């Protein structure tokens, strides 16, 4: 009789064990790639469930707008922060274990390639690619979502090309003009960039530096390589990366950069024009390499008093930074709704127009779903991924505060052109980790604690440590 409770306890423990395993095995076979592409439901006709996972509230604006267009859909929106890889861990583990899986995942530029290239991760979006052609989706945003077999598995609603933001007052002082048309050819090559950096440095007695740090220009080198980081599972250092090491080293040797890291507090001080070096002498930073979102979220937010003192030129190399993609998971329980969601978010003309022109105010969104967080809204000015709409909306954006902030230049036109030059083809799923290791190594090299060879060895060591799948020798 006394054994009964123990047996009971064991039974409960077995149940707990079984529950853990059961959840895993059940749905594992669910993802059946196949050639038949899932077709989306007709626009506005989504009904039933749809689960959307993201890491930004931006996605919630889209999800709410989708609910507005599809009143019968029962949308479950979940947000997990990016910090410490929490979102990635959550998505990867859920898709490995099955059971509670999202229909839609949002992806950052840093890891979109790893999702797109992973077998059995995302469904083909072939059914909606016809519409992408008609809204003229910016090529690099499609490139980012295309796997090695040429199948598109992720799309974006925005394009995030970068440009060189310069201080007009400093340009006026050293070059006698702040006109972007005159400055553009002066900074169009790396040699011109360094030459004019030297000129400013000499004329200012060392107080004016061309950029905060060479790391900022690193992002512009990346898309212009010939080889990706990993070729046949082996780490490859492209000649352009070697060139970057030399470029960064010379910049630092000659004192042409301000030795200020991105996102450090002096970086923001530099935008406001009130940063001093360790000895207390003022430092001035001529330019910042920022993408589309850098204008509203970095410059306008952190240096509001410098409105009108900024100009944009393409800089020495075309580049892009950030951006958000969406895809439908292979294990999705509601693939028809999910594909319609992707179509709506990334290709629907009305939605993209609303997105870019500030229609999605908090009042508009809470009218659709009263439970959205306070302050959720989308301001005007984000560069959408449709070249068709970029042309159409250009004149509207020319009147926006963003345009006034950059001295009357039209960010839509400039970035719209820049977006067409950007390539995403060389990016791989492992790029963020490898890029971080490379930046660390170059920092050690240019700050003088390692020789060039030591830094490259350290880079190889770091990559091999973090991603043992890659051969580093």
């Amino acid at each position, binding site marked *: 009789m006394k054994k009964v409770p123990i047996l009971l*306890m064991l039974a409960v423990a077995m149940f707990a064990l079984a529950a853990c395993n059961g959840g895993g095995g059940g749905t594992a076979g669910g993802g059946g790639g196949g050639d038949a592409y899932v077709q989306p439901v007709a626009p506005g006709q989504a009904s039933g469930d749809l689960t959307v996972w993201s890491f930004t509230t931006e996605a919630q604006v889209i999800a709410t707008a989708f609910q507005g267009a599809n009143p019968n859909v029962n949308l479950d929106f979940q947000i997990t922060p990016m910090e410490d890889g929490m979102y990635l861990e959550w998505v990867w583990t859920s898709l490995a274990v099955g059971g509670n899986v999202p229909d839609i995942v949002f992806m950052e530029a840093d890891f979109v390639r790893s999702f797109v290239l992973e077998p059995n991760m995302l469904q083909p979006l072939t059914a909606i690619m016809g519409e992408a052609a008609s809204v003229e989706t910016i090529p690099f945003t499609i490139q980012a979502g295309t796997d090695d077999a040429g199948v598109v598995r992720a799309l974006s609603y925005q394009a995030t090309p970068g440009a060189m933001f310069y201080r007009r007052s400093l340009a006026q002082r050293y070059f006698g003009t702040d006109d972007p048309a005159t400055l553009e050819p002066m900074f169009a090559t790396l040699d011109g960039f360094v030459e004019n950096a030297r000129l400013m440095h000499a004329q200012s007695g060392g107080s004016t530096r061309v950029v905060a740090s060479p790391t900022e220009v690193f992002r512009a080198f990346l898309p212009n390589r010939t080889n990706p980081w990993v070729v046949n599972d082996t780490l490859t250092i492209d000649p352009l990366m070697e060139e970057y090491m030399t470029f960064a080293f010379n910049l630092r040797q000659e004192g042409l950069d301000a030795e200020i890291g991105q996102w450090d507090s002096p970086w923001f001080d530099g935008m406001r024009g009130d940063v001093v070096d360790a000895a207390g002498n003022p430092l001035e930073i001529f330019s910042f390499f920022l993408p589309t979102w850098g204008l509203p979220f970095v410059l306008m937010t952190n240096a509001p008093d410098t409105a009108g003192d900024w100009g944009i030129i393409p800089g020495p190399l075309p580049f892009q930074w950030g951006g958000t993609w969406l895809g439908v998971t292979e294990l999705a329980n509601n693939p028809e709704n999910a594909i319609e969601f992707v179509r709506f978010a990334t290709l629907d003309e009305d939605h993209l127009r609303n997105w870019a022109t500030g229609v999605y105010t908090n009042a508009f969104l809470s009218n659709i779903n009263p439970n959205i967080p306070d302050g959720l809204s989308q301001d005007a000015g984000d560069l959408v991924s449709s070249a068709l709409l970029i042309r159409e909306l250009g004149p509207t954006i020319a009147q926006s505060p963003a345009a006034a902030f950059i001295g009357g230049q039209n960010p839509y036109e400039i970035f719209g052109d820049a977006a067409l030059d950007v390539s995403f083809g060389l990016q791989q799923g492992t790029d963020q980790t490898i890029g971080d290791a490379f930046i660390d190594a170059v920092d*050690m090299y240019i700050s003088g604690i390692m020789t060039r060879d030591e830094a490259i060895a350290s880079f190889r060591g770091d990559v091999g440590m973090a991603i*043992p799948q890659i051969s580093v020798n």
Partner: protein
Amino acid sequence: MNKRKSAISKDYYGYIFMAPFIIIFLAFIMIPIFNTFYLSLTDARIRPGTWGGDFVGIANFIELLGEPMFQLAVRNTWMLWLFNFVPQMILALVLAAMFTSTTFKLKGTGFFKAAYYLPNLLMPVTIAALFQSFLGLLGPVNQVMVGTLGIWDTARNFLQNATDVRITVIFLQTWMWFGQTAIVLVAGMTAISPSLYESAMIDGASQAKMFFKITIPLLKPILLFVLVTSLVGGLHMFDIPHLLAGSFGNPGNSVLTVNMLMNNRRGAPSLLLGNSAAISVLLFFMSSFVALVVFRLFRDPAEKRES
């Protein structure tokens, strides 16, 4: 009849009251631990639609033990812990002795205890960010040393110097934990009967003599507790070095700890569950072994004789 029945069924109550703990313990602690041991013997990698991997025996362990980066991480971890533990312990012992001393009769100990404990309440993220900007090339330290005082000619790049980064991590660990350790030691010291000190004083013992002959020996169980908890915590050191020096612990992997290595292997893009599980199993054996050695060393001589 009724009475007898209720008397019997009371036997079950204990199990029922224990059940929530046992279930949660099994589901969230024991099963994951066994799962980790199992995974460490496989080549599991996180993939959509699959869970687990092929059995590879002890291949992960052989690979890891022969890997210079793993050896470096183990050395770093031990060094960072040891150099933070010794000063932390000395500082905490001195402070605790002063707090409890009957001769000093310090005023406002409550305030000091709270003040010393304060760094422990701050988030590691906050502390790392604070020191990153504090020690930055244009940060306050350099501004004062180069600008205001003019002692240094050029700014010191603390975060690009392996020794400086190590010292910073060690300092932060000490600074965050000495208050906590001091409070635990104070609790241990107040439990020592004052009559021992009184009689020692009557016999003419000095403060130092009383500290070494009464306080320390009677504090042994508490010292053991502090040592073991600090050891286990220290071997799992992750957040401060990771936040201060990035996921590779640069420059020169000088503050790469075992836990950081594991985090690199487990997280995207490598997602190597088997390999990272093997790292945590090795960490588990390392801490268990050292904890056992410490327990043996601290064992009461009387107990030793019995066994």
